[in-house]
């Protein structure tokens, strides 16, 4: 009995090790199916390339990452770069990658700091919104510190400003339709270009924190 348990444990551990190795392998080398290595744009540790707008993936919610990958595939999130890459990934590979990045901790990628006035204006908008236009503050769903909530509301703290800007413009243009109840599309439609720039600058200025898999969200 004891040896059986031990054997099962060992099997589990090696399975976990294999999963981790797979994720690392795909991130570094791509897949045999032709997917490009994630790290060439998202950084060796998933820290992203802020200036080019390639987002930080380290520490994002695992289901959130999976949902985005599925969305690239099914076209609810249009993106010319990601679409062919994800098309080359199997279902298992998508899950593996999502798990790999969700568990990563990476230091914040260096980025050119934005103007303090823009950051301050973004902070205000993130906290209190623009209710005369019917727009909630970003923090009302993404958390006051931008750490995200669950699988649906991604963390924004420490994310690339260029990425956030592009993402918001993409929501606004209708190139992204993978949100529940159209919540994000509705918010983005109410933002003007200055507000988008400011709020992106604010979130990029925040420190990154531990992975989103907090004790309460762990299975």
């Amino acid at each position, binding site marked *: 009995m004891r040896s059986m348990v031990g054997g099962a444990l060992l099997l589990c551990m090696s399975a976990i090790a294999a999963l981790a190795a797979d994720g690392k392998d795909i991130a570094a080398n791509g897949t045999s199916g032709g997917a490009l290595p994630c790290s060439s744009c998202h950084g060796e540790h998933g820290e992203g390339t802020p200036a080019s707008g390639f987002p930080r993936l380290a520490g994002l919610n695992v289901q959130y990452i999976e949902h985005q990958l599925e969305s690239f595939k099914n076209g609810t999130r249009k993106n010319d770069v990601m679409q062919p890459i994800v098309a080359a990934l199997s279902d298992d590979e998508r899950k593996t990658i999502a798990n790999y990045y969700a568990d990563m901790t990476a230091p914040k990628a260096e980025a050119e700091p934005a103007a303090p006035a823009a950051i301050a204006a973004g902070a*205000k908008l993130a*906290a*209190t*919104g*623009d*209710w*005369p236009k*019917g*727009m*909630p503050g970003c*923090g*009302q*769903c*993404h*958390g*006051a*510190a931008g*750490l*995200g*909530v*669950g699988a*649906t*509301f991604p*963390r924004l703290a420490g994310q690339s400003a260029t990425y956030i800007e592009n993402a918001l413009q993409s929501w606004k243009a209708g190139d992204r339709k993978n949100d*529940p*109840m*159209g*919540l994000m599309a*509705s*918010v983005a439609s109410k933002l003007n270009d200055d507000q988008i720039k400011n709020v992106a600058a604010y979130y990029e200025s925040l420190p990154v*924190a*531990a992975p*989103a898999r*907090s004790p*309460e*969200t762990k299975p």
Partner: protein
Amino acid sequence: MSGNPIKPSTWAAGVVALAAAGFIGHMLPSTGTAPEQPAASAQPAKQAKSESPTPKAVAPVQETAAPARKTEATSASYTPPAESDIPKGPFGDMVRLGEAIFHDTQHNAKGFVGNDLQCANCHIDRGRQPNSAPLGAAYLLYPAYRSKNGHVNTFQERLQGCFRFSMNGKAPPFNDKVLVALETYAYFLARGGPTGVAVEGHGYPKLKAPGQPADYDRGAKVYAQHCALCHGAGGEGQKSADGQTVFPPLWGPRSFNWGAGMGSINNAAGFIKANMPLGLGGTLSDQDAWDVATYMDSQERPQDPRFVDSVTETRKRFHDEPTSKYGLIVNGVLLGEKSPPSGTINTMD
């Protein structure tokens, strides 16, 4: 940011019943069909088991009750001052403190809060948003006689009620800095408004009676479809990774208690219709709002701090109206019987 315009309105007689309280915490009797099973039995648990699992529909509210305070029809206009109008100096500092308490009650009114809510959860945009019980519009209506406690209440006393019921905490003493700050903030937001007049957008909208009597089961479906994403399948709310509540619990031990105005289905329906889902206010039908409010207000929550003797007696004294489910049996549960305690002050942080 500029203030939200709160337009004046012409109020038909009889539609001003809730003027006594500009925002949550008030309940008025209403006409309607009979409430479901009153909990008359001394052994409610046993009785509960034999009851039908499906609660009867709640009666919609017709605002026919005499207004606790007369309000005049008006055509005066009122726009709360902008944030940039807050003056420098001690008065302005107090306004800002009040705003900070409103926005982050958890941290700025510590010691008086007994759940995971913020003022701004039910008073959107830090108490500025019309149809979300805006603070300035409420200030204009005080002092006022309130049927809830049977005497003329000052604004500070009204604020105390918010802490005792909606925040499930304890009332700050009169002239405590928390109350002074909130009163000062409300006074600032009321600037330019007509005193004693229920301006348009005050309180929560009074929805017309639904086409079909409000229904718990339909409400559960609306909840699953439109609310659970943020507030959780069990109404428990959601936190971010740092443990801060982002989406408030709607029932259970960390939500408002049975004495809160939001526990009245008419208030909840009006709030939900105008403001929920957050950022998509006005998208639910009136029927959906009634149904989901009925569902939310048929769940167990902290005890009414005015509890006397028994659930039955407490219902008789404080909840004897079709808009409250307290003391009724819903899904085999006598609401109020196993309520978590009220007034459990937060000790964390």
